[in-house]
């Protein structure tokens, strides 16, 4: 099978692209498949209706599970996590902080559960070291005085954005595979047992495009059921669970801290560079699009989390975020947390299709394995006999992918020390040169990137000011370098602030209320972003 060269503007006005494999969904699974296929010599086009990690891939704790979290209800998942976690630590160390994890029980927690825990971990071959509560509190001084049991496990954290960017960059370097952000599937054209053409819509410039591929992979995550239905397949059945997480102003613990009980609300605190992430809630939902954190969910997380670390009740929070997790519809009874957290690969052959498959469910830690399974099927269908290499081949370091790592920007900036390279985001120390590199070379760069897309590829806007100052500075800088040339730059700026606010709205109190008031006085009172459209008229 020869790789097919993509070809634009094939017929009429509609841009047409050809490829061997079209992958729908730019979450970690989709990007993992893109790279896995490239390592087998297969060209792919990846599309996402928003951008990389816009769904559950970017909306979680960033926890690379040791597997211990699942020993009580899903030993298979636990073992899978243990294997995949160890593999990623070896092959993608630059996306991972191997911080270790603790499981802690406080007075009132189920003692039998806690006592059973080491034996369950042993069954899954997960290292589990008992710690005296006093020692655990020495390791993590914010832990509750009411701690009764503690264990140490090999949990770690992973940066899903860096992971996604590196996977896309590698696939592009190997095979010239392409990634189109903001590109949404509109319809599938079937011919017999094949999907011949996928009609898409480019949401940025409002233009149609068509993609012809030999194989189509639906890696749509929570959207996978809707995408499958568009293709006429009714064999993907998902439930949706909305999870809300909080970001603290400071890093409150150096380990992942898990509550030693059956999985429940607000029972994991994960370090994320200079902050900590507390979550999650779990709420059944039917609405995939409107996932804003609510005040109630924020309060549940704080209440539950502060049982483990009492200072969470007083902490300053800079952000909350919600995402919808896809859960495979369970056959039996049980709550959402017991619903299978495993993944499913559906070949759709019973639906009369031979070149379409869906992969969904699963979790961040096992994304590589999911990509392997999907790629195996696709390669087999294409007659490609190369075996999977993602379990052997280290993930490269891409220069334009490196700006998402917390705390790394100042290091790069200082090391390179270019004269005149000014810091634009002062909370996270993101310099002009980072913005240059991203708009010039980052995976998924567009003709005119918005500030959100730049922020996704860097730490800009992730600090306490949540972009309210650096959004202005980065926008000015982009005008300066001639990247923005008309009022659309201000609309990008406003969209960025509106987007960031969705995550701030439910945590505005204390210091954040002062921050927010100042930001709004600047953005609306002075710059008039609230009347931008009226100005245009």
């Amino acid at each position: 099978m020869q790789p097919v060269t993509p070809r634009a503007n094939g017929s009429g006005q509609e841009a047409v692209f050809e490829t061997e494999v079209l992958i729908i969904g730019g979450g970690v699974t989709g990007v993992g498949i893109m790279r896995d296929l490239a390592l087998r010599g297969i060209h792919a086009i990846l599309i996402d209706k928003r951008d990389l990690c816009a769904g559950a891939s970017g909306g979680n704790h960033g926890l690379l599970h040791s597997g211990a979290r699942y020993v009580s209800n899903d030993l298979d998942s636990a073992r899978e996590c243990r294997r995949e976690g160890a593999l990623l630590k070896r092959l993608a160390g630059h996306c991972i902080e191997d911080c270790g994890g603790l499981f802690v029980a406080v007075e009132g927690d189920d003692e039998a559960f806690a006592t059973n825990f080491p034996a369950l971990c042993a069954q899954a071959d997960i290292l589990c070291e008992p710690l005296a509560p006093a020692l655990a509190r020495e390791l993590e001084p914010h832990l509750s005085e009411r701690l009764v049991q503690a264990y140490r496990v090999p949990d770690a954290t992973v940066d899903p954005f860096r992971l996604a960017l590196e996977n896309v960059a590698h696939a592009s370097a190997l095979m010239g595979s392409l990634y189109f952000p903001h590109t949404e599937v509109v319809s599938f054209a079937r011919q017999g047992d094949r999907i011949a053409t996928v009609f898409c819509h480019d949401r940025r410039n409002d233009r149609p495009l068509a993609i012809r591929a030999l194989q189509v992979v639906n890696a749509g995550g929570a959207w996978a059921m809707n995408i499958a239905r568009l293709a006429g397949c009714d064999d993907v059945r998902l439930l949706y669970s909305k999870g809300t997480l909080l970001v603290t102003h400071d890093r409150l613990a150096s380990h992942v801290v898990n509550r030693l009980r059956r999985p429940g609300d607000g029972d994991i605190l994960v370090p994320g560079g200079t902050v900590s992430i507390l979550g999650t809630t779990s709420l059944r939902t039917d609405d995939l699009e409107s996932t804003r954190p609510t005040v109630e969910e924020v309060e549940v997380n704080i209440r539950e989390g502060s049982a483990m670390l009492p200072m969470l009740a007083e902490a300053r929070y800079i952000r909350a975020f919600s995402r919808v997790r896809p859960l495979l519809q369970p056959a039996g009874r049980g709550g959402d947390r017991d619903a299978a957290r495993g993944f499913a690969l559906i070949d759709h052959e019973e639906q009369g299709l031979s070149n379409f498959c869906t992969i969904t469910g699963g979790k961040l830690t096992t994304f590589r394995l999911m990509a392997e399974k999907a790629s195996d099927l696709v390669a087999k269908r294409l007659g490609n006999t190369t075996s999977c290499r993602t379990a052997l081949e280290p993930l490269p370091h891409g220069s334009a992918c490196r700006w998402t790592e917390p705390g790394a920007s100042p290091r790069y900036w200082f090391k390179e020390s270019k004269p005149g390279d000014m810091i634009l985001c002062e909370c996270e120390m993101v310099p002009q040169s980072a913005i240059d590199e991203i708009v010039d070379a980052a995976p998924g760069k567009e003709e005119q990137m918005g500030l959100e897309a730049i922020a996704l590829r860097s730490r800009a806007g992730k600090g306490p000011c949540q972009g309210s100052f650096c959004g202005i500075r980065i926008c000015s800088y982009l005008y300066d370098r001639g990247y923005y040339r008309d009022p659309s730059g201000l609309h990008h700026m406003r969209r960025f602030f509106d987007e960031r606010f969705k995550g701030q709205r439910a945590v505005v109190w204390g210091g954040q209320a002062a921050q927010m008031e100042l930001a709004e006085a600047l953005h609306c009172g002075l710059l008039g972003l609230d009347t931008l459209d009226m100005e245009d008229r």
Partner: protein
Amino acid sequence: MMPPTITLPEASMPEESRTITTELAIIGTGIAGFAAAVFALERKLTMAMAGSTGALAYTTGYLDLLGKLQGTAHAVDDPWQALEELRRSEPEHPLSRIAPAAIERAFTLFTDFLGREGLAYTPVGRNNLQIMTPVGTVKPTLSVPATMAAGPALMASGSPCVIVDFHGLKGFSGRQAVANLSQRWPQLETARLAFPGSRGGELYPEIAARSLQVPEIRQQLAEMLRQAAGTAPAVGLPALLGMHRPDLVLEDLQRLSGLTLFEVPTMPPAVPGIRLRELFARALPQHGVAIVPQQKVQHLRLDENGAHLTLGDNYGTIAIHAKAVILATGRFLSGGLEARRDTIREPLLDLPVAQPSGRSQWYEERYTDPRGHAIHRAGIVVDQAFRPLGGDGHPFHPRLFAAGIILAHQDWIRSRSGAGIAIASAYRAVDEAARLLGR
């Protein structure tokens, strides 16, 4: 043998306690507090002030009265007429409770004072000025520093003009201003200069402004401006033309360059706010006002004789006894209001705060929603004499008055009325305090 004992001397600086007795105490050193001081001086009241001046540095120097009415699409052109509409649509708004003549008198007194102290402002007129912002949008405001005055007229006439910016000055891009103003002002161009004496790297506006007090630096800049202007007769540049007497710096640069010049505010905190802060810190003590700068009032007690404030600095306790007190402590940024997880509080006296029923009601879903957010309308409710109301609906105390954006039933951000509310309500509060004091 016992080791020798070492006796440490008593602390060499004993705590001294200082007491100030005066007629009026003003808590808060933002626009409202300083405006109250100006009006109280006019009334020949003795006074003491305390507060931190952090938020003042965030002003652009523009003095807004009323730039936008809730629910209308357009910027307000005639704020006096808009005030009449406000009186009908928002009768509880602080500006609806003050006679327009008093508002006008307050603005005039305030800007006259600034002018006398070296920071001239444009006369308070019938219409708003339409003036550019650092990103090239246009904002309605009532009065601006004289150093910014030429901008609106040049924009209105569409005269050729060059916006100059400087290497290393973050957040101010001439290209951005031009890109956003080009429809309205086609003959606007831009040029980038190296600030005189700058050796690359970041340019800090405050330092640049202070350096322009030096004649040689002005000479160099004037020459650069002349070249950058080309054939254009006018140049706009970031607000860094001197810290004290910027009007003289501007005049000198105009003389040297032969150009019409005007300042454009940079992103706050910036020079125009620092100018105001420094002006008040210098001028008010010269007029006999006791200012306890950068100290938060820790305690305020009210009794039949007056108000008793407790503050502290590194040298000990300071007590202020006054016959009346004006609370001008601002909102969340300045600490006049506190947003807790479940409620909004006034921390000094625990005054009742009019507010939405819960945190989920504070904000609309969309940040830049033109309707604004309920949290901004929270605040202290006052009676006709600008006395805060207690829980029983009666004045909390006959000697307590409130002024500025701490007041409820207004959204100063969306209505572009922050300075207007501050200046006008300070005028009314001082008026009522003076009446109480028999002045």
